[in-house]
C-alpha cells in the first residue's frame, strides 16, 4: 500500500475504526515508512488530547433558572386547562354534514315525487281528472300550421288578424241571417268544384272557414243538391 493511500486511512486507524485487511496493510506499511509514522503520531496525539479537552460546564445558577422557567410553563399549562377550556365549536362538521345531506335528500325526493311525469293521470286541472283524454296535444308539435308565430310574414299584424276575424264573423252572420252587405248573391261553391274563386277573407293560410249548410233544390242538371259546404 502506498503512502498516499495509507495516510487517507490513518485517522480511522488511529481511532480504531479500521478493520480487516486494511488495518493489516496499514500496520505493515507503518512498520517500514518513517514519514507515515510521523503522521500517525500527530493523529495519536489528537486522540490522546481529546479526553483532556476542557469540559464546558453550566453555571451554578443554571438549574435554578431552568426550574423557574419550568414552573412558569407548568402554571401556564394548568391555567390554560382550568380557565380556558377547549371551546365548543359553533359549527361541528360531524353534526352539520348529516343534516345537510338529509335536507338535500328530502328536497330531491320532493322534486321527484312532484314531477308530473311520475304522477298518475293527466292534467289535474280537468274537471274529470282528464283520465280519458289524450295528453299528446301537450307535447304535439303542429306540422305546417300557417298560424304559428314562426310562420309569420313581415306584413302580419295583430290588428289585421282582428279585422279579418271581424269580417269572418260578419259574413257568417250575414249568411245565416240571409243578409249581405257589399256582396252579391252568395256564391255557392260546390265542395268539389274547381272554382278557385275565394271569399275576400278566405286566404290560403286560413283554416277557419264558416261551415254553412244550405239546402238548395235542384233546378238544373248541374245542381247536385244536398248540402253544400263552403
Amino acid at each position: 500500500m502506498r503512502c498516499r493511500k495509507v495516510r487517507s486511512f490513518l485517522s480511522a486507524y488511529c481511532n480504531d475504526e479500521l478493520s480487516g485487511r486494511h488495518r493489516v496493510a496499514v500496520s505493515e506499511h507503518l512498520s517500514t515508512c518513517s514519514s507515515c509514522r510521523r503522521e500517525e503520531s500527530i493523529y495519536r496525539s489528537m486522540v490522546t488530547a481529546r479526553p483532556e479537552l476542557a469540559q464546558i460546564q453550566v453555571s451554578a445558577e443554571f438549574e435554578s433558572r431552568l426550574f423557574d422557567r419550568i414552573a412558569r410553563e407548568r402554571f401556564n399549562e394548568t391555567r390554560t386547562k382550568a380557565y380556558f377550556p377547549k371551546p365548543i365549536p359553533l359549527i361541528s362538521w360531524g353534526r352539520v354534514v348529516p343534516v345537510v345531506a338529509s335536507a338535500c335528500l328530502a328536497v330531491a325526493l320532493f322534486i321527484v315525487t312532484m314531477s308530473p311525469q311520475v304522477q298518475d293521470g293527466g292534467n289535474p286541472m280537468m274537471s274529470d281528472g282528464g283520465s280519458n283524454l289524450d295528453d299528446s296535444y301537450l307535447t304535439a308539435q303542429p306540422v305546417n300550421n300557417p298560424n304559428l308565430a314562426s310562420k309569420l310574414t313581415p306584413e302580419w299584424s295583430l290588428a289585421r288578424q282582428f279585422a279579418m276575424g271581424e269580417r269572418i264573423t260578419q259574413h257568417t252572420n250575414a249568411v245565416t241571417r240571409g243578409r249581405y252587405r257589399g256582396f252579391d248573391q252568395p256564391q255557392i261553391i260546390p265542395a268539389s268544384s274547381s272554382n278557385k274563386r275565394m271569399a275576400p277573407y278566405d286566404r290560403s293560410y286560413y283554416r277557419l272557414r264558416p261551415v254553412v249548410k244550405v239546402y238548395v233544390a235542384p233546378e238544373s242538371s248541374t245542381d247536385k243538391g244536398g248540402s253544400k259546404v263552403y
Partner: protein
Amino acid sequence: MEKQTEKEIDYQLVRAIQKGDMVAFNKLVDRYKDRLMNVIGRMLSSAEEAEDVVQETFVRVYQHRQSFNFQNCFSTWIYTIGLNLARNELRRRKKFKFFDIDDMQGNEGDLAVEPKMPTRLPEVLDAAIRKLPEKYRTAFMLRDVQEMAYDEVAKVLDVPLGTVKSRVNRARMMLREKLQPKLEEHNALSKSTLLPVSLL
C-alpha cells in the same frame, strides 16, 4: 450493552416525565446538561448564550415531552433540538452584529497586552476545534468528543451516513494541519533542551 442500558434509563425517565414526575426531569437535566453545554458551548462564542440555548433546549423538551415516540434514542432527540436552537442563534447573530460597549471605550492600555497563547496540547486542540467550519466542527464534536455512533450522528444532523464520515474525516485532517506546526515545534524544543518538555 452499556449504551443500551443508557438508552433504557433515558426511556424510563421520559416515561416518568410524561406522567408528571419532576424528579425524573431533574435527573434527566443532570444527565444531559454538561453534554449539551460541551457541544453548544463550542458552537457559540459566548458561554452565556450557550447556557441560554441549553436552557431553552430543556424547556422545549418539557413542553413537547408527550410527543416523544420512543422510536429513536432520547439523546438523538435532545441533541437535535439543541443543535437547531444553536444554529438559529448563529443565524440571528449573523444578521445583527453585537458589539460590546467595553470594547469601544478607550482602554488602550489593555490592547497592548497580547492574548495568552495556548501552550498545552488540549488547549491548542480546543482552539483549533473552535476555528473549524461549523458543519465539520459539529460532526467532530458529536463523533469524537461525545463518542456518539455514526448512525446516531447522522440522525441528529439529518444527513446521510457517508456524509457524516466524510465530515469527520475532513475535520480530523484540518485539525492535523493546525496541530502539526505545534507538534514539530515541541519536538524541536525537546531535542534542544535537556529537560523533558511535554505538551500534555
